[in-house]
C-alpha cells in the first residue's frame, strides 16, 4: 500500500497496540482480558503492519523461524508448567498446592502460575494469527505471479 497517511499512522499505532497487547496478557489475572485477547491484539497489529508495508517487511518482523519457535514454544511453556505442578503436587497443572506463590490478590505478582500460563497462551495465539495470515498471503502472491 503506497499511501503516506496510512503508512505514518501505522508507524505510530503499531507500537502502542503491541504494548497494549502485552499489558492485557500480563494483567490477565487482575483485570478483564488474558492470553487470548492480548495475543489477538499483538497478532492483528502485526497483520496491520504486513498489510501496509508488504509481505517482505512483515516477514522480516516475524520470520518463519520465529513463528516455528513461538508456535511450539507457547505450548511447551504451558506443558512444562503443568509438569512442574505434577512433580510437586501430584496432579497436572496444579497451582497453589504445587508451591507457586499466591501473593496478594489484585497485585501484578499474584495468582501463582496463572500469569505464566497467560504468557504461553498469548505467544501461541499471536503467532497462530500472524502465521496463518502470512501463509495465506504468500500463496496468493505466488499464484498471481
Amino acid at each position, binding site marked *: 500500500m503506497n499511501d503516506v497517511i496510512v503508512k505514518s499512522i501505522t508507524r505510530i499505532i503499531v507500537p502502542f497496540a503491541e504494548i497494549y497487547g502485552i499489558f492485557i496478557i500480563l494483567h490477565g489475572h487482575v483485570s478483564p482480558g488474558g492470553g487470548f485477547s492480548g495475543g489477538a491484539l499483538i497478532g492483528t497489529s502485526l497483520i496491520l503492519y504486513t498489510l501496509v508495508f508488504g509481505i517482505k517487511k512483515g516477514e522480516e518482523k516475524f520470520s518463519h523461524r520465529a513463528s516455528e519457535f513461538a508456535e511450539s514454544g507457547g505450548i511447551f511453556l504451558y506443558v512444562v508448567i503443568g509438569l512442574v505442578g505434577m512433580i510437586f503436587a501430584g496432579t*497436572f*497443572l496444579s497451582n497453589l498446592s504445587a508451591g507457586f506463590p499466591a501473593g496478594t490478590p489484585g497485585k501484578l505478582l499474584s495468582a501463582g502460575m*496463572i500469569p505464566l500460563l497467560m504468557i504461553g497462551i498469548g505467544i501461541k495465539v499471536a503467532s497462530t494469527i500472524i502465521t496463518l495470515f502470512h501463509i495465506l498471503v504468500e500463496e496468493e502472491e505466488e499464484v498471481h505471479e
Partner: protein
Amino acid sequence: MKKGLTTALFVILFIILVSQILIMPGDLGINSPSYNEVTYYYIQRAIQDTGANNIIAAILADYRGFDTLGETIVLFISTVAVASILKPVAKYEDEKKVNKHE
C-alpha cells in the same frame, strides 16, 4: 436418484434434530440444570484457591487448565493443517517453474 436420496436423508436428519430441540427443557429459569452449586463455589472460593482477582482467568487457567491446553493445541493444529495444505502446492509450482526455465 442419488441426489434425491441425499436430500431425503438430510430432511430426515433435520426432522430428528428439530424434534430433539423441541424436547429440550426451555423455560426453567433459575431451575435450569446449569445453575448449580458450581457457580457459587467459583464465586466464593476463586480468590482463596488461586489468588487471582479475575475469576474468569482463575477458571480458564486453573480450574479448567487442561481444557485451555486443548484449546491451544487446537490452534497449533489449525496452523499445521493450513501449512500442510498450502505449502506443498507452492513447492510444486516452484519446481514446475524451475523445470520450464531449464
